[in-house]
C-alpha cells in the first residue's frame, strides 16, 4: 500500500558529482540557486540550461530519476505558466482571441518562471541523487560548526536529521501494518467526504504516534547506555577533505555566476 514511497533518493555511482565533498556540493547548490535567481533577462537563461544539462550528464544519473523529481511540479508548472501568460498585461499585444489577450511581457515572464522552477528543481535534486543522506547530514554539520560560537546546536541538528532519515522506512512499514490491522477490523479509508476520511485516519495516527514515542524513548536509552553525550569530542568515522575536484567545481561555479552577471549587463537584446 505505502510501499511506493521512496525517500532519500540516492542513486549509487562513481561520477565526478558523486566524488565531490558533500560540503562542496551543499555550497555549490546554494551558489547555483543564486545563479538562477541572478538571471535578469531571458536571453541569458540558455547558459543556465546548458550548465544544468551538462551537470546532469556528468552525474550519470538516469534521466528517469530527474523526471521523477520534476513530477510533483506537474500541476504547479502549467498553473504558473498560464497565470503569468494571461495576467500580465504590459508590452505589445501578441494574440487576441475572444476574451483572451496575450501580451509580450506575459509570454516572456511565463517562459521565464517555468524555466526557473524546472532548472531549480533539477539542479537541487542532483544534490540528493548523488549524495547519501548520511554524507549530506555530515556535510551540513561541518558547515554549521562555526555557528557553535553563537550556541547554534550544529551536531544535535545533524543527529536529529540522521535519526529522522533512518526511521522514515521504519515508520512507513509500521503505518502499513497498522493500516492493515485496522482494515481487518472493518475500517474504511477510501470512501466518504473529506471530514469522514480525516476521521478515519485517527485509528492509524494514534498507534503510530504512541509507538514512535515509545521507540524514541528506547533509542534515547540505547544511545545513553553507549555513553552518547552530544557532539563534544566526538570523532567521525569518515573524515572529509577538500580535493582538487572540489576546487575545480568551485571555479566552474564561479565562472557561471560571473558570466551570468556579465551577460545580464552586456548581452545585446534580441527583441
Amino acid at each position, binding site marked *: 500500500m505505502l*510501499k511506493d514511497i521512496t525517500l532519500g533518493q540516492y542513486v549509487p555511482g562513481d561520477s565526478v558529482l558523486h566524488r565531490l565533498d558533500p560540503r562542496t556540493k551543499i555550497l555549490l547548490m546554494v551558489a547555483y540557486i543564486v545563479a538562477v535567481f541572478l538571471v535578469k533577462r531571458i536571453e541569458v537563461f540558455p547558459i543556465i540550461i546548458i550548465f544544468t544539462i551538462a551537470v546532469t550528464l556528468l552525474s550519470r544519473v538516469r534521466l528517469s530519476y530527474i523526471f521523477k523529481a520534476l513530477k510533483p511540479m506537474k500541476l504547479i508548472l502549467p498553473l504558473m505558466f498560464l497565470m503569468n501568460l494571461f495576467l500580465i498585461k504590459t508590452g505589445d499585444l501578441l494574440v487576441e482571441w475572444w476574451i483572451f489577450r496575450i501580451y509580450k511581457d506575459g509570454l516572456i515572464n511565463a517562459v521565464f518562471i517555468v524555466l526557473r522552477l524546472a532548472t531549480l528543481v533539477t539542479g537541487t535534486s542532483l544534490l540528493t541523487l548523488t549524495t547519501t543522506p548520511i554524507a549530506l547530514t555530515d556535510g551540513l554539520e561541518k558547515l554549521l560548526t562555526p555557528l557553535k560560537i553563537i550556541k547554534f546546536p550544529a551536531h544535535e541538528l545533524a543527529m536529529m536529521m540522521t535519526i529522522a532519515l533512518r526511521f522514515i522506512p521504519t515508520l512507513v512499514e*509500521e503505518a502499513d*501494518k*497498522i493500516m*492493515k*490491522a*485496522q*482494515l*481487518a*477490523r*472493518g*475500517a*474504511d479509508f477510501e470512501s466518504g467526504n473529506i471530514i469522514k476520511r480525516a476521521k478515519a485516519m*485517527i*485509528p492509524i495516527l*494514534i*498507534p503510530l504516534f*504512541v*509507538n514512535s514515542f*515509545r521507540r524514541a524513548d528506547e533509542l534515547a536509552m540505547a544511545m545513553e547506555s553507549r555513553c552518547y553525550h552530544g557532539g563534544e569530542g566526538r570523532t567521525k568515522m569518515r573524515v572529509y577533505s577538500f580535493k582538487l575536484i572540489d576546487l575545480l567545481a568551485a571555479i566552474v561555479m564561479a565562472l557561471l555566476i560571473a558570466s551570468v552577471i556579465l551577460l545580464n549587463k552586456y548581452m545585446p537584446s534580441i527583441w
Partner: protein
Amino acid sequence: MPIVVEKLTHTYMPNTDNEFVAVEDITLTINEGEFFGIIGHTGSGKSTFIQHLNGLMQPTSGSVTVDGFDMSDKKQRAKGRARVGMVFQYPDYQLFDSTVLDDVSFGPKNMGFAADEVKQRSLEAMRMVGLDPEVFAEKSPFELSGGEKRRAALAGIIAMRPKYLVLDEPMAGLDPSGRREILATINSLRDELKCTVIMVSHSMEDVAHSAERIAVMNDGKLYALGTPDEIFSKTNELISLGLDAPRTARLAQLLRERGCDVPEDIYTNERFVEWLKRRMKNA
C-alpha cells in the same frame, strides 16, 4: 463452506530489480470448524500467505475464495473479509481508542450494528478473552500489560464474531505461562464460538497441542500438509528447515538415536507420559 486457496502466488515488486516471490503456488483448503496450524521459519512467507485469507493482500496469480466469495473481487471481498477475523502479532498496531471498551467496539461499529448491540458484543468479547469488563472496560488500552493488550486486541476481533479466526504468532514474546493462558483462551473461544481457528507460528510446540491439521511452509512454498502425527513423524526434516521441534519430540528423537523404541507419534508431554507409564507397567 471452506476457505479454498488455489495456486496462490504473491510477488513483491514484480518486474523490478527487487522482485521477490514471497508465496509460490500454494493450493490448500481450510475446512469449517477445524484448528489449522501454519508453521514456518521467519521469512517463509506465512505472514504474506495469511494476509491473503482476508483480502488484505491480493494474489499476483491464483485465487482465494472464502465461503464462495472471491477475495480478488472488490465487492465480494468486503463480505469475505467480515467472515475472516485477523489478529496481528503486535497489539500495539491496533489499539488506539481512549478506553478498552471503545477500542473493542471499533470493529462491530464498522460493521454497522446498532449501539446497544455493539456494546453487548464488545462486553461479551471482553469476557470471553478473560478481561473482566468491570475492571477493564473504562481503562485506557495503553495502561494494560503486554498480555492484557494482546487479549484486548483479540477481543476487538472476537467482537466481530468472525467465522474464521486467523492468529499471527499469538504467543510470540510471551513467557511460558502467558503462552499457556493464550492457548487456553483460544481453545475456549473455539468451543464457545464454534469458529475455525487458523494459527501461525514459527514454533512447532505452539501448534502441536491443538492443531488438527498443520501446513509447513518453507521458502514460500507449501512443504508439507497433514495431521500432527504425519507432520511430527518428520521431526528431523523440520529441524533442518530451521523450525523449533516440540521439546518432547526432540527428546523422543534423542531416545530413538540411542536405541530406545519410542513410537513416531509421540510429540506431546501427555502422550510421552502415557507411553512411559505403559512401558514401565510392561517391564
